């Protein structure tokens, strides 16, 4: 097919190809490796044997139809999975080579290094915009030596929200639009300086305009950290990610079918099921 050689600008493969990064960008952040991750809810095996590398400074998109285990998987990466009663897991998740599930690990330290942004914007309604940004320091009982105003400006700028809120930092966060709230949540995650940022469908509750702003933010952030993003939107995966992993639960537990550079995943996937999914034949 001709798309292999000359990607169409409007096709997913074309979008993904246009995004391929110039070599020479020094990767930053930390690498994350999942090794044989299984996840259960009670006796129900929801995710089977996922091994996936997230190289430092890359953006990896997790795609797949609903119920394929991609959200479950991303929640095992910062130990949020265990909040669901009866949830269990097997396997290892290595941050800088160290298993985050190793006994004697302080789970709060793990979550400081691996931040998370949720599907629904969830700023703390009792706090102001400024307090929300700095909430992580208070919550994790960290003493911050630097200037907190500078930190606030820096993180809000990185999240692409500074210009919109700089005059009302002491207003309550509930007055922001959904997209602004989500960027505030991103800023809040950045304030504790994580090495990895997990995003679980961060744009699914937002309008297209806000979605583009968030994607912009992701592109900016990917210069300084490792990002894993779950998305239902394949266009989004093509626009923002370096690598794409396709998940599928074919009646049984969720599995990772295939992973590869995003442009290849959308132009010439190796697995027929991936091909069917990215070409819109199901899901």
């Amino acid at each position: 097919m001709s798309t292999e050689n000359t990607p169409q600008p409007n096709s997913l493969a074309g979008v993904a190809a246009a995004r391929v990064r110039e070599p020479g960008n020094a990767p930053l952040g930390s690498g994350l490796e999942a090794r044989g991750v299984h996840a259960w809810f009670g006796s129900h095996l929801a995710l089977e044997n996922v091994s996936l590398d997230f190289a430092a400074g890359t953006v990896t998109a997790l795609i797949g139809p609903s119920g394929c285990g991609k959200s479950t998987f991303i929640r095992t990466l910062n130990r949020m999975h265990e909040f669901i009663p009866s949830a269990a897991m097997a396997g290892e998740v290595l941050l800088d080579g160290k298993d985050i599930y190793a006994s004697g690990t302080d789970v709060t330290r793990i979550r400081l290094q691996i931040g998370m942004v949720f599907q629904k914007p969830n700023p703390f309604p009792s706090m102001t915009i400024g307090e929300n940004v700095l909430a992580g320091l208070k919550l994790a009982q960290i003493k911050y030596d630097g200037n907190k105003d500078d930190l606030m400006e820096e993180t809000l700028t990185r999240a692409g929200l500074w210009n919109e809120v700089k005059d009302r930092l002491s207003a309550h966060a509930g007055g922001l639009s959904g997209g602004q709230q989500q960027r505030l949540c991103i800023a809040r995650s950045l304030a504790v300086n994580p090495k990895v940022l997990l995003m679980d469908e961060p744009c699914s509750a937002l309008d297209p305009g806000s979605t583009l702003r968030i994607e912009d933010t992701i592109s900016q952030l990917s210069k300084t950290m490792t990002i894993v993003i779950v998305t239902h939107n394949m266009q989004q995966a093509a626009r923002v990610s370096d690598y794409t992993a396709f998940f599928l639960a074919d009646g049984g537990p969720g599995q990772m079918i295939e992973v590869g550079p995003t442009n290849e995943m959308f132009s010439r996937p190796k697995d027929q099921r991936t091909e069917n999914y990215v070409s819109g034949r199901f899901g």
Partner: protein
Amino acid sequence: MSSTLIERVLPEKRALTTKPRPSDVAFRTVLNVMSYSSLLILAAIGGFLAFRGFGAFKENGFGFITHAEWSSIVGDNGKEVSSFGMGAMITGTLIIATIALFIGVPLSVLTALFLTFYAPERLKRALVTVVDLMASFPSILYGIWGFIVLAPMATYWAKLVYKYLGWIPFLSVPSPAFDRSPFLAGIVLSIMIIPIVTSVSREIFAQTPLERIQAAYALGATRWGMIRAVALPFGASGVVGGAMLGLGRALGETVAVYSVLNIVFKINWHILYGYGGNIASMIVQKFGEASFTEKKALLAAGFVLFVMTLLVNMVANTVVSRAVKSGK
């Protein structure tokens, strides 16, 4: 101005009615009668107290609320000379209730936080049952226990408090008499309000939105950090409402306080000192041997208590229901 606009003619809104079947009408009538009956009973009690006590209000005027003296003497001529004032009882009731809240609310809130965020499922179920059981425990048993077991200990604690904090005015005592003090009554009451305050707080904390809890944990929050930043702000108004429901109970509690408090008609601000006042207990103490005029005064006292508890409970219910609504 409006003459330039074209008037829109809208049809009359239609009444949306249905013809109910007889069975429905009957059931509805029964329900109506039942649900209004409790209101009616409450109104009847209030009306009875106000009506029968009216004489005492009239004779003693505003002094019935403010004066501390309570006396009724039959003179040589066979005429009864009386003066009734509730001042000591009202202040005593409020003082004891305050002590009860001061001790009981922190205990209850911490218990509720433990049950909601820390306790393993099994322990939680067991503890909730025990705490709820505390509510149904007869109050005379609290009173007897308070009198026999708690009183000697509380006297010792009172002495300790006095020794180290006696320089604070209300913690001082005119003479070393620590028995049967408002402090002791407050401790007994604090135990009795724990169930209601705990269960209301627990219900509020359990409604803390999961997404906010997760947001906190995802930021590396410690459990204490999460509680401080998310659960407490969310549950604050509910806790206040629960505390006020506890206050409602503390104001009206009778037998337990009667068993441990030395009731004297003199205003006492020294909470460690061995006498105090309490409206409900005072009524129990006096009613059996009261003369006709004194009975009127006691019914009037009952009316005062009735209004106080009603007000506190109404405010508490409003606060609680508002807290529950604003949480969603």
